[in-house]
């Protein structure tokens, strides 16, 4: 291994097996390139591309944020037009609800497209490899679409000794709550589908309905391993719902409301002019609540290190062994929808969803800040996946009942103490 890092050839070469002209950039990698990555021109180029993407994204967000309020008169004009043509206001609100519902339906679907690609890229770079590079124009951007089309076209296999009706209904029972759970969650200030007063309870309640779907999936597949996988998964999900809900209680106590949009907006303002009033910055209570909620959310969504029920080498993929094609895609979609939900909830509860971190940064619209906080938290989910080994199932339960639950209960008491000290 020589001292110079790159030695490209001077003339193009032919590959006699393929008969194609190859790129002249044939190179070989000295193993100590990691000691000085900035000396590699491709590394510098990649960093410049990343910086350009972030700046470009921020500029695009600012631009869209500026033209948004200028479009509001269009909606008012459309509404006046409809009213003048004797359409009752009731139907206008129905149409508007349907449009909002269609946009809300898109949220988990578009998220699945992006999140799967991002997960593959991040996991690849953590493992020093490249991830999807080929499909799509840039770094495999359309890879998820291609995989989705493949899953769509696969044959739908139902095992012979399976209960056909329950087997078909199980993915539906898992996926529908995963979509309707986004109703009270804000995507920015004022961007809520259903601004209901019990948003938090609704989210946790509807999330619990998916557990029934997983048990249905495990039982109806007709083999013992799927049943065991389904039961283990259901036990894990039901157990980890407790610390998750208790971790949010101090936040609810500090905010004084269950409405998620109001919890997010009650964190506006800055202490001393530059520290944002986010709940994560409240001494001890905020940080403990955030960590417990984060760990419990990772467990709730069946991600590593808590993915005993569905990991490839455990119980042959657990409850989704016997699912192929679109049904498997629905389970996958629901997992990523719940990851997005957990990240949105964390951004609303703990990071002031929509509020800029520093006072002078609020030229970016609230949905852009919300999105960036959500993406950062989703990165944490992906980061945990490739750092930790999997929990054994009894250690998983121990971790919940002997650590997370007592800590979250003590946190509630500490939250009460904090409120008493503040007032």
């Amino acid at each position, binding site marked *: 291994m020589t001292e110079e890092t790159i030695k490209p050839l001077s003339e193009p070469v032919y*590959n006699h097996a393929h008969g194609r002209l190859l790129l002249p950039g044939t190179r070989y*990698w000295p193993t100590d390139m*990691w000691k000085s990555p900035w000396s590699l021109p491709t590394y510098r180029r990649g960093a410049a591309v990343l910086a350009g993407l972030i700046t470009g994204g921020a500029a695009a967000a600012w631009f869209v944020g500026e033209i948004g309020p200028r479009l509001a008169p269009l909606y008012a004009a459309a509404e006046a037009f409809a009213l003048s043509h004797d359409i009752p206001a009731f139907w206008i609100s129905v149409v508007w609800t349907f449009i909002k519902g269609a946009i809300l339906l898109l949220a988990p679907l578009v998220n699945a497209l992006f999140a799967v690609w991002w997960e593959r890229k991040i996991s690849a770079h953590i493992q020093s490899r490249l991830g999807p590079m080929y499909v799509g124009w840039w770094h495999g951007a359309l890879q998820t679409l291609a995989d989705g089309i493949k899953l769509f076209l696969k044959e739908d296999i139902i095992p012979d000794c399976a209960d056909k009706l329950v087997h078909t209904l199980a993915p539906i029972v898992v996926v529908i709550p995963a979509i309707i759970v986004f109703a009270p969650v804000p995507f920015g200030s004022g961007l809520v589908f259903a601004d209901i007063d019990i948003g938090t309870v609704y989210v946790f309640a509807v999330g619990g309905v998916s557990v029934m779907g997983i048990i249905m999936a495990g039982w109806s597949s007709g083999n013992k391993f799927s049943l065991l996988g389904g039961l283990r998964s259901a036990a894990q999900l039901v157990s980890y719902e407790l610390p998750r809900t208790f971790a949010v209680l101090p936040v609810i106590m500090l905010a004084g409301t269950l409405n998620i949009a109001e919890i997010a907006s009650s964190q506006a303002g800055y202490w001393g002019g530059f520290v944002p009033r986010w709940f994560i910055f409240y001494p001890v209570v905020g940080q403990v609540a955030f960590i417990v909620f984060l760990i419990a959310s990772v467990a709730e969504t069946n991600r590593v290190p808590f993915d005993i029920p569905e990991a490839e080498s455990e119980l042959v993929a657990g409850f989704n062994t016997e699912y192929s094609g679109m049904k498997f895609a629905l389970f996958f979609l629901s997992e990523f929808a719940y990851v997005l939900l957990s990240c949105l909830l964390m951004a609303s509860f703990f990071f002031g969803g929509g509020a800029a971190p520093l006072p002078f940064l609020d030229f970016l619209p609230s949905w852009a800040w919300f999105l960036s906080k959500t993406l950062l938290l989703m990165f944490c989910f992906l980061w945990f996946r490739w750092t930790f080994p999997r929990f054994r199932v009894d250690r998983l339960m121990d971790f919940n009942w002997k650590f997370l639950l007592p800590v979250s209960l003590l946190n509630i008491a500490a939250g009460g103490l904090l409120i008493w000290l503040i007032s």
Partner: protein
Amino acid sequence: MKNYIDFVADASWNTLKGLWVTLKFLFLPSITVQYPTEKIVPYPRFRGMLAYDAELCIACGMCVRACPSRCIALAKAAPPPAPPPAADGQPAAPAVKAGPKIEWYTIDYGRCNFCGLCEESCPTKPKAVWHSLDYEAVFSTREEMVRRWKRGDGPWGTVKRSADAQPSAISDQIHIQDMPVRK
């Protein structure tokens, strides 16, 4: 109680250390070589596909005897005819220059195990048979695996395409790197 707190603190610290390691690796460059568009040039003593130079070979047969897989075969060329004896008064005819000493030479790449013994035993300088740096030895049929050199063929010989077809020269055979300096 103290054990519990110690355990939790120890576990948290190790978790954070693990997360830091993973984060560092996220920002280090990837070591993937994206194969058809990027290729690795091996180290100089890499034993790739065999190449042969008919001009230098002295047809000693050391490579045939050294090969453990018996993949080399050769036939010596007949020596050039001796010039006619000088007649009285006529100047002696100049001796015919000897051409390559080899009639034909074949290597069966299906049998070659890339051990390098033929290269080691070749007495010429530079060597007449040597391992190039080519690792893309791809063949479609068994017949293609046997290469034959006659006078004037390039370093990669000719190959029989089918049982009755004439063997054709593979003229665009350039491999992934230049010919390295032969030892």
